[in-house]
């Protein structure tokens, strides 16, 4: 695989471009990217402000931004596999010489890059609707943390993507898990209000660490953002190590069960 690294990078870039072109023609996705973050921000920031906790405004904006990033990245990754299955292209992608995870990485990265728009919309909503001062303590660390968060979310999406190849209900799975993930990752409420027994589960989720890294870089949470960034890198590698053998096993299973074209 490494021997043809330029070729595989070309496939990643082609999948990135392909996904961007498809997305540009999908008005529903444009809605997800532009409208959902506005709704999340108004609900989330409004809850804190009208609850008398206006000092949590920026925290809420980052949380809402992360929800938008999750939606744009993971939700659509689920839809990617489901859409390919319904369109009859999933079997062709799996039977192509390029490993399917490389295709999925390119497409997921494309959605991750688009989700930056979602983050920008969130900040703009906070600024325009609530006139929130968006003072970021360490802008450079914030940008690095954001990029590493996207990388971790993409890797997490790859693990989920492997399971999405198995199931014909990827979209429904993402719908059901959306809010539990938001809550477990501390995107809607601070993690401190969660029961202790739930917190180990949070530690395995990329959005939780991304949110923490961004909060630390923004100066909202005490701590060193670079240390959390290191954790995000480690987490991404763990996800990738899980995803690789998982895809090999799952490809064998779908070829055995003949389920690639069933929807």
């Amino acid at each position: 695989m490494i021997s043809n690294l330029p070729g595989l990078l070309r496939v990643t870039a082609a999948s990135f471009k392909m996904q961007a072109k498809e997305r540009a023609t999908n008005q529903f996705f444009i809605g997800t990217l532009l409208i959902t973050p506005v709704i999340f921000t108004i609900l989330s920031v409004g809850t804190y402000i009208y609850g008398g906790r206006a000092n949590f405004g920026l925290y809420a904006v980052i949380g809402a931004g992360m929800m938008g990033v999750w939606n744009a990245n993971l939700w659509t990754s689920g839809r990617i596999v489901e859409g390919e299955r319904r369109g009859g292209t999933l079997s062709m992608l799996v039977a192509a010489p390029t490993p399917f995870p490389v295709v999925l990485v390119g497409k997921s990265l494309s959605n991750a890059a688009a989700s930056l728009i979602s983050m920008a919309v969130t900040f703009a909503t906070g600024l325009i609707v609530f006139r929130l001062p968006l003072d970021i303590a360490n802008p450079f660390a914030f940008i690095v943390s954001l990029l590493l968060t996207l990388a971790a979310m993409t890797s997490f999406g790859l693990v989920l993507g492997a399971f999405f190849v198995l199931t014909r209900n990827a979209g429904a799975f993402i719908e059901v898990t959306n809010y539990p993930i938001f809550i477990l990752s501390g995107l809607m409420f601070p993690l401190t209000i969660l029961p202790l027994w739930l917190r180990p589960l949070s530690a395995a989720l990329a959005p939780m660490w991304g949110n923490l890294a961004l909060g630390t870089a923004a100066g909202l949470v005490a701590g060193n953002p670079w240390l959390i960034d290191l954790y995000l890198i480690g987490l991404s590698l763990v996800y990738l190590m899980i995803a690789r053998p998982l895809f090999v096993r799952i490809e064998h299973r779908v070829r055995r069960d003949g389920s690639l074209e069933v929807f």
Partner: protein
Amino acid sequence: MSAIVVENLSRNFVTTTGTIRRTQKTVTALDNVSLAVEPGELFGLLGPNGAGKTTLTRILSTVLLPTSGRAEVLGLDVVRDTKKLRPRIGMVYGGERGLYWRLSGRDNIQYFADLYLVPPEVSRKRIPELLELVGLKDRAEERVEGYSRGMKQRLHIARGLINDPDVLFLDEPTIGLDPIAARELRTVIADLHKAGKTIFLTSHYMYEVDALCQRVAVVNKGQIVMTDTPSALKQLVANLEVVEVECLSVTPEAMSRLRAHPRVDAVHIDNRDQVQVLQIQAPGGVEFVPEFLQLLDGASIQKVVTRQPTLEDAYVKLLGKDALSV
């Protein structure tokens, strides 16, 4: 070395019925199939719906695993050697799925060129050539969603050829096409064969296999019934004459009477628009036309012709009643 070797290949599918009390049922799609295709050959697999044609194509193109038996393409095992095999084969499945409808025809081919790791300098030259070959050069920049069914099918062919495969699998490529589009596609397939490609074609159109293929295997209920050249298959019915009766309101009783006639080998009924066409196979059939028409008492006879047998008649003779599902 043969381009394709299939030995004792079987494939079962397990289906589940019921919601609370679930029961599993095993369906055999391929049952101990063996065949070989030579390099440069255009080989046809002919059979009714559900005979196992698509299952065999999916196994040979590495999308499905066999339950038992062995299959090799270009000397590579379809189960174990997928990394080496996939860049060397192309597959074209019938129907409108399998394309990105929101993208242009050119974007679709370009994407698969990248997926098949075709070097950019090669794909820059090959994509216009393929678009020319399938007659889509002038519509290449349009979104696929605006293409007719025939255009989508031709785009499938171009996509399947992007890696310049040694072996091309065509699974019912003309299904659902109008006669002109189907004829154009058959011309493309014949040209590819002339260019030296090994082609594995599945179809349930007899005339298509007869016109294109050097050899044909007839498959029914997951088993190969016969493998030979189209002309050898036609020899099965060489001593027969076929009486075609175009009529209305044929009763099952009349059909039974006809089948019981001592000189009748087989009768196939074909519903075309509002008329029924009976194809009666009988040695020296022309002499017995008056008797046949008498047995069809009650039916409104529109037209009677006698003709020499075709591959379709051999197919009807081989498959008997199962041929009706074609």
